[in-house]
């Protein structure tokens, strides 16, 4: 019985410790929502970046090898 009580207390302590740490390390919510949106849009725009086809031009060059 005593062992069970000790175990419950330990588990409770661990849960409280975990909850406290999570709250402490959580990022503060400020009014920077628009910044995230802009970042998202910029990230989306980054997906349209390419080198202009360097690999394709290399492939074309290779296809003429042997002439």
């Amino acid at each position, binding site marked *: 019985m005593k062992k069970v009580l000790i175990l419950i207390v330990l588990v409770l302590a661990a849960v409280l410790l975990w909850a406290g740490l999570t709250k402490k390390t959580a990022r503060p919510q400020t009014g920077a929502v628009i910044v995230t*949106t802009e970042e998202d849009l910029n990230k989306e725009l980054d997906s349209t970046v390419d080198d*202009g086809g360097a690999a394709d031009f290399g492939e074309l060059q290779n296809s003429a090898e042997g002439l």
Partner: protein
Amino acid sequence: MKVLAAIFLVGLMFAAPVMAKNATPGAKVQTVRDERKRKIVERVDAKLVEINKRRTDAMTRHLDKMSEILVKVKARGGDTVVAEAAVADARIAVAAQAAKIYTMTISTEDKLKINVGETMKALTTDLRNLHEGKIVPARKAVSDAIKSVKPVSTP
């Protein structure tokens, strides 16, 4: 007479696809006697078409993405006029590039490498110019449009 006309028509039916095939950019390949070189020229010819399609398809995909972004920017009160014009301009240029056919003009067999090289250079130059001249500026315009979204200050 009717029999002759029928034979002519049937002959035309069989000849038409062959004639159409010979009218493709690779038609000049027949002037190359060396079998090995002819195959290479045919391969390059196919590659020219494939790479032009691949590149213009990629550019179209990117322009579609830019348009999607502009819709979001507009919804958030951003200025998209310049970017929309740049994307539309790029779309026209990409469509024109996609429709281009690169014909290899083979003068003599000893100039084969030069002739093929010239055609390859024409394609790569066109694609590079299109990328640098239209796609990159369109992306820059979209980036500027994103910056125009006014930050909403929350109390």
